[in-house]
C-alpha cells in the first residue's frame, strides 16, 4: 500500500542509491503530506538513514530525483533541518551546549558574518523548549545520552525550518527524554511543520506517528499510520523474521506492555 499525496512537501521519484555498486535503496517513489509526523521504519540495513540522507543530498543518487516544497534541494536548504544520529559526532569536541545550538543559526546568518544577539536569544529559547536552558554553558562532553539528543534537537529547532529530518532521535535516550521529544514533535506537527523520523521501535509507532513509511531496500508501504502498520505489511517489510514479528504483533495488540527496558 503506497499512497501518493497531492502537493507533497517531500517528493522522491525513482530514487536509487548504491554503495560500492550494491543497492541500498531501490526505485523509491515516495511523497509525503505537509504537517505530517512521519515515521520511517524497517529492519536494520533497510536503507532508512540512507533515505533521509539521500533526500538531503548527503549521499549521491544513482538515479531519480528529490523535490522539496516542489523545488530543487539547493533552493530550499534554509527551510530544512537535520538531526543526525547522536553517535555521528565526537562528543569530546571542545564546545559548550550553546555553541552547538548556535550552529543551527549559521545557515540563517550566512557566510563570513558573525552571530547577532538575536541568534543567541533564539538559541536560548530553543534550549528552553527541550528543558536544557540551565545547561547552556555546560561542556558537551559532560552530557548524558538523553541530554545530547535534546541538544541536537534544540539545534534543529534553532534552524527555524519547515521540514525536519531526524535520524533515530529516540535511540538510547531515557524515557523522560523520549516523552519530551515526542511531545515537542507533535507540537511542531500541529504548527504545520513536517517532521520525518527514522524509527526502530514498532510498538510505539502507531502512537507516535500519523504517517508511516515501511522500507526494506524497496518502499513497501507509505500511508496513514493505522492503515500501514498492519501484520501483513510488517511481515512483508521484515521478511524472514516471522517469529519476532508475531511477537511484535501480539505486543502491539496488547499495547500495555512496556516498550523499553530503561
Amino acid at each position, binding site marked *: 500500500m503506497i499512497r501518493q499525496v497531492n502537493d507533497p512537501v517531500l517528493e522522491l521519484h525513482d530514487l536509487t542509491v548504491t554503495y560500492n555498486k550494491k543497492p541500498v535503496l531501490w526505485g523509491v517513489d515516495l511523497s509525503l503530506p505537509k504537517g505530517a509526523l512521519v515515521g520511517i521504519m524497517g529492519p536494520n540495513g533497510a536503507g532508512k538513514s540512507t533515505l533521509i540522507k539521500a533526500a*538531503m543530498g*548527503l549521499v549521491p543518487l544513482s538515479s531519480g530525483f528529490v523535490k522539496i516544497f516542489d523545488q530543487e534541494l539547493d533552493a530550499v536548504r534554509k527551510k530544512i533541518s537535520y538531526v543526525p544520529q547522536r553517535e555521528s*559526532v565526537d562528543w569530546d*569536541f*571542545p*564546545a559548550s551546549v550553546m*555553541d552547538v545550538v548556535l*550552529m543551527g543559526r*549559521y545557515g540563517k546568518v550566512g557566510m563570513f558574518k558573525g552571530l547577532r544577539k538575536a541568534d543567541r536569544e533564539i538559541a536560548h529559547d530553543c534550549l528552553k523548549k527541550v528543558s536544557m536552558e540551565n545547561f547552556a554553558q555546560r561542556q558537551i*562532553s559532560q552530557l548524558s545520552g538523553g541530554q545530547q539528543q535534546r541538544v541536537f534537537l534544540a539545534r534543529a529547532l534553532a534552524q527555524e525550518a519547515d521540514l525536519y529530518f531526524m535520524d533515530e532521535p529516540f535511540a538510547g535516550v531515557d524515557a523522560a527524554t523520549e516523552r519530551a521529544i515526542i511531545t515537542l514533535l507533535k507540537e511542531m506537527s500541529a504548527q504545520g511543520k513536517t517532521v520525518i523520523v527514522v524509527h526502530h521501535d514498532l510498538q510505539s509507532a502507531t502512537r507516535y506517528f500519523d504517517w508511516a513509511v515501511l522500507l526494506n531496500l524497496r518502499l513497501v508501504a507509505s500511508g496513514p499510520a493505522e492503515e500501514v502498520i498492519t501484520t501483513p505489511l510488517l511481515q512483508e517489510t521484515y521478511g524472514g523474521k516471522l517469529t519476532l514479528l508475531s511477537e511484535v504483533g501480539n505486543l502491539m495488540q496488547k499495547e500495555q506492555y512496556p516498550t523499553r527496558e530503561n
Partner: protein
Amino acid sequence: MDTIYIIITGSLVAISCGLLGCYLILRKMAMVGDAISHAVLPGIVIAFLLSGSRDSAFMLLGAGILGIFTTFLIEFFHTKGNLQTDASIGVTFTWLFALGVILISVFAGEVDLDQDCVLYGEIAYVPIDLWILDDGTIMGPRVLYIMGVVFCVILAFIMLAYKELYITTFDPSFAVAMGVSTTLWHYMLMGAVSLTTVASFESVGAILVVAFLIAPPATAYLLTEDFKKMLWITAFIGVLTAIGGYYLAVWLDGSIAGAMSVVAGLLFALAFLFSPQDGIITKKFKQMKPPVLETDQSIAEMIS
C-alpha cells in the same frame, strides 16, 4: 636585534601553524601537516629546475601546488580506494618525499638544495638572509616578511571562516545538509596548511613545522574545553615555545629548531601531568585528597 628577529619569526610560525593545527587535531588528521611538509620536496626541486633560481616565489608556488596535490591524493586513496586515512597519508608522503630525494641526487650538481636543509631548516640564519631592495636599502630579514604575510592570511582566514571551519569540523553531515560544502572547506584548510608549511619550513625546517602544528594545539586541548580558548592558548603556547626554545638553544649552544621542538614537547608533558581537568597527577591527587583547595596546594608545591 638578531635575538628579536629569531624569536618573532619563531612566534609567527608557531602561531600560524598552531591555529591551523587546532583544526587538524580535531579532524583527526594531525599527521597531514607532516605529510605536506615532506611531500612538497619534489615541488621545490621541480620549481627550482624549471625557473633556475632560488627565488622564493617560485619555490612557494611549486611547493604549494604539491601540497594541495598531496591532500588531494590522501583524500583520493581514502575515498576511492577505501584505504584508512593514516595509511593513505603514509603511502602518499613517503613516495613523494622519496621522489624529491631522487630528483635532488640526480640533479645534485645543479640544485643548491639538500635534504638536511629541508628537514631541519635553520632558523639561526633568519637575521642574515636579508631583503635588500634594488637601490640597496636593507629592509630586514626576508623570512620575517614572508611569515608576517602568512600569519596575516591565516588569521584573516580563521576569523572570516570561523563558523564554517567550526561546523565542518564538528559535524560535517549537518554542515552539508545546511548547504555548507565540506569539500570546499577541507581544501581551503588544506591549502592554508600547505601555504603555512611551505613558507615556514624554509626557515625552521619540516620537523619544527610538524612540532608547531601538533604539540601546542594538543597541549591546549588538554587545558580547555572551549574552542576559542583553545585557539588563544595555542597561540600563547606557541610564543612561549619560541622564546623558551631560543634561550634553551643559547644555553645549550645547540640547534634552535631542535630546542624549540623540545620545549613544545615539555609544555605538552606538563599539561599532560598537571592539566586541571585531565592531568594524570591532578587526578591522582583528587582521588587521594577530595578537597579541591588542598589538591591545588599540593600541586603548587610539586611545581615549585
